């Protein structure tokens, strides 16, 4: 069952074309990974899907779909006067203590963390809290924007393991932005390569032949194109 359909999606920010003629579909229960070099428009694509940015073209979500969003980062100070419990409760009425306990368990965190300050916990823990926050309403789709440099590789790996577990147990659809091709290869059902336009779309096995990747990241030609006379 189709859960999302994108046709001729174009996004301009401040006069610059950031996304051009994007087309893809997402099926229910699928894990779609969006990959591409820095500045390719991956985060912009996620934000456009959420309805945060203006666009031209068609974004068709299945009616009444519930979307959860895990942003790349939160720009907060370490001494922000806000506990983890209070942060989760900012979500409003749907948050019961039961619900919070359940979601914390899902993301593999102990209840002790509820009393900690949101700015005091590690970035990896904060990422998990964000996942807990965005799953409080039991969404049908989770949009996950990978944190770039903030988390060490081991931390990232375990977050993907957790996402994978979550996705298996609750059968939601995942659209994730990732830089880690290894993770994409293992966890994604479908890969969208993005560099302003969508350059390729397919299963990880189809995508991960060198030519496609070279096209996406500029590859050898980009770096070494010089002629000897």
């Amino acid at each position: 069952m189709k859960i999302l359909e994108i046709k001729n999606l174009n996004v301009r920010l401040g006069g610059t074309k950031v996304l051009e003629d994007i087309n893809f579909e997402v099926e229910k229960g699928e894990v779609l990974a969006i990959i591409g070099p820095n500045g390719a428009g991956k985060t912009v694509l996620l934000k456009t899907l959420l309805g945060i940015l203006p666009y031209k073209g068609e974004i068709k979500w299945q009616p009444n779909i519930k979307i959860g969003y895990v942003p790349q980062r939160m720009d907060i100070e370490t001494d922000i006067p806000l506990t983890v419990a209070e942060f989760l409760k900012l979500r409003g009425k749907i948050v019961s203590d039961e619900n919070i306990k359940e979601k914390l368990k899902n993301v593999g965190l102990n209840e002790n963390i509820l009393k900690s300050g949101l700015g005091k916990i590690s970035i990896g823990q904060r990422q998990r809290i964000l996942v807990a926050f965005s799953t409080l309403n039991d969404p049908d789709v989770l949009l996950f924007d990978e944190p770039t440099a903030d988390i060490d590789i081991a931390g990232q790996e375990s977050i993907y393991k957790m996402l994978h577990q979550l996705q298996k147990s609750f059968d939601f659809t995942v659209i994730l932005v990732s830089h880690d091709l290894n993770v994409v290869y293992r966890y994604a059902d479908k890969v969208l390569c993005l560099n302003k336009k969508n350059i390729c779309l397919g299963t990880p096995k189809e995508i991960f032949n060198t030519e496609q990747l070279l096209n996406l990241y500029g590859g050898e030609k980009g770096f070494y194109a010089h002629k000897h006379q």
Partner: protein
Amino acid sequence: MSILIQSIIVSIFVAAAASLLGSFAILKRMALVGDALSHVALPGIALALIFNFNPFLGAVIFLIAAVTGIWFLEYKSDLSVETLVGVFFAASLALGAVITPEHELLETLLGNIASLTRQESLISILISIALIVFILKIRKKLALNMISEELAQSIGIKNRRLELAYLMIFALIVALGIRFVGALLMGSLVIIPAASAKNLAKSLNSFLSLSVIFGIIAAASGVYIAYIYNFSPGPIFILISAIFFIISLIIRKFNQI
């Protein structure tokens, strides 16, 4: 009711509303907006004095025009909003200072809560209460908006509308507070109690409560001391708040060791 008691009661309510708002201004790192806004109120007050209508009304009209302008510019202009605000608002202060009748200038700049009539006091209290209730009602949305706009948007919060509401609250509180501490010190009425509270608070609830408590204590004691020693109450309020801030800073350093 004596002027002293009336002034103390009004100052308590205005300070409570201002320091509650201040907590969110600190969260959003918008500490200087209050200062800039208070300058805009000045020409409004001056015109009210010249044409003989209520200064509160003059201030409100100018402030609401200003925040609506900021709200539009925030999204429309390529120029940094801070730059525009800096230039435009300093010009307002200058204009206000030029056209304010000279014998009123000191009071407009430094405030004088004792000059409020019974009716003005009552209106100030009622508006303060309404603003406090409103801020508490939207506090979760505001906090989330200030931590991450995207996260707020993703759960269906209308950020643009929320920001306009926030700026309108700000405008009204500046208009109220200007009678108390004056145009020069208005920004501090909003910010200092919240800044002190942030040094001590670990949770949002304690942050908001401490900020309001600091505001109230400084207001009541400030007005009282000013009355006894015949000072202007606004500056005394700010000085007491600043002492609270220093103490909170010392406690914070102490806690970190």
